[in-house]
Structures are given as structure tokens and as C-alpha cells.
């Protein structure tokens, strides 16, 4: 489908994706709320920081960091690979391939359509954060807020593209679920999701700087909590979007190679 037609169809895809996402309201809400690991880490790290700060983090900095992490994770989370892996294995991807819109666009619409529900969950958390911390926990620089919005889009895109690539791996292996498990282990440790990146030893940080994980969580959280100057933020944003560009290229390649191997099993 041409980009113009895709964009024209996109609002309908989003509307129907949203209707689908909220078909089981209670289930959706429980699922979104189950991603509360940052709140667990908040409790853990604030206990650790009660006696003395850890690096630059005292108790209130940890509260700000992990509340921001919770919000960023809600706004950038995406689990499309589950659907792709399932559809490749049992052949229902055929239904998407028959439609004159690229399947990756329809997966992306489905992922985006869940966003309003995620925002509904994030909003109270943002209000709680403001009430608990006042405004001192977040940056006051409007330019950094613009950068933050861009970093949220970049983080979501990188996460989506990782999901696409892992989902496409199902074309080559019979299942790509374990591959995603491996990615998620690295993601949890190296993205800033469980541990702020600046608490890692310098040598580990040097490695993290060359990997994409921190751009999925760490960067938006750091921008939100005012950890970077404008120039440093801009440089990091460029790095993040470079990873997104690499992800787009890798996705296009794996999709093209993978779909040739699609066996459309099962009737």
C-alpha cells in the first residue's frame, strides 16, 4: 500500500485497534498494572538510600527516577513480538499478508492503539509523583521537555523495531520467544529499568553507551528528571535516533528475508 493510502487508513486501524485493546477492559487494566517492577525497585532503592545516598541518588532522587521509569515504560512498552511469533507459527499471518497494507504497519497500529489505556494508567502516577515530590523531581527546562517527547517517540520506536526483528526471527527459527527472553534480560539490566545507568561502574557504562538498551528507558527518564544539559541531551537524542534508523534497516532486511520463508501452515 502506498504511504498515502496507509496514512489514510491509519486512523481506522487505530480506532479498531483501540476497540480491540479494550474489549476486555478489566484484563487490559490488570495487565498494564502488572508492569509495576519500577515501583518494586523504588521501594528497594529508597531503602538502600535511607542511610546514605547512592551515587547522586538520595531517597527523593530514587523516587523521582523510578516513578519516571514507570511512566516511560508505560508510554514505550510494546509486545508485538508475541502476536507476530504466534501468527507466523500458526499461519494466521496469512490474513495480514492478503491485505494491501504492510503487516508491520498494522502491527504498529495495534501497538499504538493500546497507548490511550497506558496513558490512563500513567496519568495518576504522574500526579502522585508531583504531589510527593513537588516539581523538584522533574526538569523545569521546556526545551528538555521537547527533547523528552522526542525521546519517548524514539524509545517507543526502538522497542517496536526490536519486537519486529524478534518477531521476524520466527520465520527462521520455529519460535522466537526465547530470543526475546534473552533480549529482555539484557534490557532489564542495561536499560536503566532496574538500576540507574550512572550507578554502573565506568567500564560497564562504556559498554552500555554502545548498546541500544539505554535509549529505550534510561534516556527519557534522565531527560525527565533533568539529568542532562541541553547539549548532552541533544547528542544522546541523535544517538537514539541513529539506533532507530539502524532498527528500521534491520527490520526491513529481516522482514524481506523472513517472509520468503513463511510457510502459512495450518489450512
Amino acid at each position, binding site marked *: 500500500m502506498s504511504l498515502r493510502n496507509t496514512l*489514510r*487508513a491509519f486512523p481506522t486501524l487505530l480506532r479498531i485497534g483501540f*476497540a*480491540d485493546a479494550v474489549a476486555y477492559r478489566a484484563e487490559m487494566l490488570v495487565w498494564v498494572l502488572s508492569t509495576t517492577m519500577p515501583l518494586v525497585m523504588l521501594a528497594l532503592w529508597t531503602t538502600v538510600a535511607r542511610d546514605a545516598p547512592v551515587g547522586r541518588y538520595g531517597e527523593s532522587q530514587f523516587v523521582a527516577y523510578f516513578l519516571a521509569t514507570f511512566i516511560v515504560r508505560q508510554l514505550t512498552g510494546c509486545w508485538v513480538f508475541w502476536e507476530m511469533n504466534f501468527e507466523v507459527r500458526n499461519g494466521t499471518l*496469512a490474513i495480514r499478508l*492478503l491485505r494491501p*497494507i504492510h503487516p508491520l504497519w*498494522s502491527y504498529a497500529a495495534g501497538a499504538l492503539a493500546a497507548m490511550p489505556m497506558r496513558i490512563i494508567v500513567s496519568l495518576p502516577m504522574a500526579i502522585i509523583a508531583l504531589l510527593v515530590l513537588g516539581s523538584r523531581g522533574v526538569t523545569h527546562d521546556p526545551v528538555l521537555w521537547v527533547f523528552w517527547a522526542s525521546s519517548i517517540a524514539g524509545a517507543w520506536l526502538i522497542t517496536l523495531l526490536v519486537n519486529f526483528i524478534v518477531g521476524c526471527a520466527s520465520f527462521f527459527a520455529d519460535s522466537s520467544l526465547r530470543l526475546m527472553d534473552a533480549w529482555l534480560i539484557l534490557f532489564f539490566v542495561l536499560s536503566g529499568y532496574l538500576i540507574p545507568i550512572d550507578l554502573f561502574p565506568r567500564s560497564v557504562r562504556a559498554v552500555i553507551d554502545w548498546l541500544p538498551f539505554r535509549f529505550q528507558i534510561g534516556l527519557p527518564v534522565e531527560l525527565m528528571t533533568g539529568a542532562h544539559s541541553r547539549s548532552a541531551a541533544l547528542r544522546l537524542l541523535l544517538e537514539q535516533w541513529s539506533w532507530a534508523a539502524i532498527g528500521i534497516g534491520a527490520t526491513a532486511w529481516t522482514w524481506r528475508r523472513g517472509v520468503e520463508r*513463511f*510457510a502459512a501452515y495450518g489450512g
Partner: protein
Amino acid sequence: MIRVRALRKHYTVHQRAPGMAAAFRSLFRRARSTVAAVDGIDFDIETGARVGFLGPNGAGKTTTLKVLAGLLHPTSGEVTVDGFEPRRRQDAFLKRIMLVLGQKQQLLWDLPPSETFELNRAVYDVPRPQYEATVRELTDLLDLAGLVNKPARTLSLGERMKCELAAALIHGPKLLFLDEPTIGLDVSMQATVRDFVRRYNERNGATLILTSHYMEDVAQLCPRVIVIDKGKLLYDGALETLVAKTRPDKRIVLRFSRAIDARDLEGLGKVVRHEPVQSILQVHKDAVNAVVGRALATLPVSDLTVENPPLEEVMSELFARGRSADLQPGNDDVA
């Protein structure tokens, strides 16, 4: 409309024996084999034709359909559909075709079918007035009123299949691939689906390619059949000719005014079934007149019909016999 030459589709599949030891061995070394799902077939299909693909399970029918619909990339061979190479899945091609998979659904499970219709309107870029007219027409023809606003998961199998058909036709495809469209449906719903599909073909001049294990679907819808077995083409031609060549027999169904003994039928032909007041005889088609004359003269016949053998039996015999010299492709031309 469709041109297929030397089409092959081979799969590489892993093989593993049952048991723990085999599972462990498979971690290190996996036996692979190549399966020729489609193994060098040729055929042409004209615009507006209704063609049935017949074959036992695993014959290669659905694989062929999926190659024609662009879902599978052929291993080798040449395939063109309405001037397009299906594997490229160009938008213009996808807008002309639809594949209905009886065992897979495009209806969004948790939403009413009307939402799937709307989704298809958007992705196929169907103008709103045309969409509304099509939905009205399909609702009338398939009696969908009252169904389209219920979640798909709450519909019966037959209701879902009717909605599947409607969803498949929102964009008015000129080429319709139907893979087991009546599977699991009761007899009445099968007839409804068949009737609808035939009318769609006649009204829109659409080309129709069907696979079904229900021979009645094929007999009712498809003047021409393509028979595939083990990936190879066994027959391409008129259904009637296939029946006549495979089983040059007729069945004479006799009903009697009083009970008769099986011995009374001796010498008339092969007795397929005998009940006191009804018998079915199988005789060579050239002997039908003589046997009918003798039966009328010697037995208390109250009713008599002459029928072809059931298509299921014809196909079983054909596949059991394997390839035979007189059923080679191309010996019966059907437009």
C-alpha cells in the same frame, strides 16, 4: 487470468522420533527432509471460470492456492495471476483477489463483524458510498441482519462463515480463492454458502477457485476440476468426464412394491445394497438399458432411478489407482 507453469513448492521439515532420547538428540542434530508439496504442475484458468481443486489431504491443493494468492514463494516455476506475479504482493494485485480460508478467520474475534468490514473498507480504500451499498447487498444476500453487530466470538460457525464471506467481498475481488469454505457447516448452511458463491461468480464475472473435501461443493459449483495428488497434477478437465473415465458405471436404484429376496437380483449387476423393498445395483453404463428392461420385466418395480456413482467413491478410486495413462493432464479441454 491464471497461468501456471512447472510450479514447484518444496518445504524443508525437521523430523524427530518420539521419546526423551530423540528429543535430546535433536538438540544437537536434526534430521531434515524435503517435502515436495507441489511438484511441477501446469494449468491455465480463464477469467470468470469456476474451478475445483480436488485431492486427498496433503495433496498440494491449499499450497497451490496459497502460491496463487501470493502467500507462499514458489521454489521454482512461473506463476502469473491477472498479469501479476503473486509473490510480489503488489497492492493492485491484492485488491483484485481474496483468499477465504475455512480454517482461519479474518474476523476480529472480540469485535463485531461490522468492525472487520470497516477495517477492510479502510485498507482496501473502498469509497464510502460503494462500501455502504456493498454491505447492504451482502447483508441481504447472506441474511446478516442481526449478526454484524454482535462480537464475532458469540456467532455460530455458520454465522461466522457468512460474515467471513461478506468481509472477504467488501472490496469486490475479481478472483476468489476458497479453501474449504464449508468445513464444519451443516448441510443447509453449506447450500447457502454454495448458492451465494455461485451468484457472486455469475453477477460479478469473478473467477472462482475452490478446494473442498465436500464433493457436493465441487459438484454443485465447478464444471471444471483439477485433481492433484502428491503434488502432481492427475487430471484437468470436466468433472463429468472425470467421473465417466474413472468409474464408467451407473447406479440403478430400484424400489419395489413388495419385499424381494436378494437372489432375485442375481445376474442383473453388482448389488451395492439390498433391503427388502429397495436395492442399488452397479452396472456398466453400456448395460444400463438392458438391465433396466430386465428389472422392469422380472421384478415388482415401483420406482427406478439411474445415477452416477457418488463423487467421493470416484475420487477414492482415482487416488487409489494412482496415476493412470488415460487420466493424464491435458486430455480434456475445458474452457
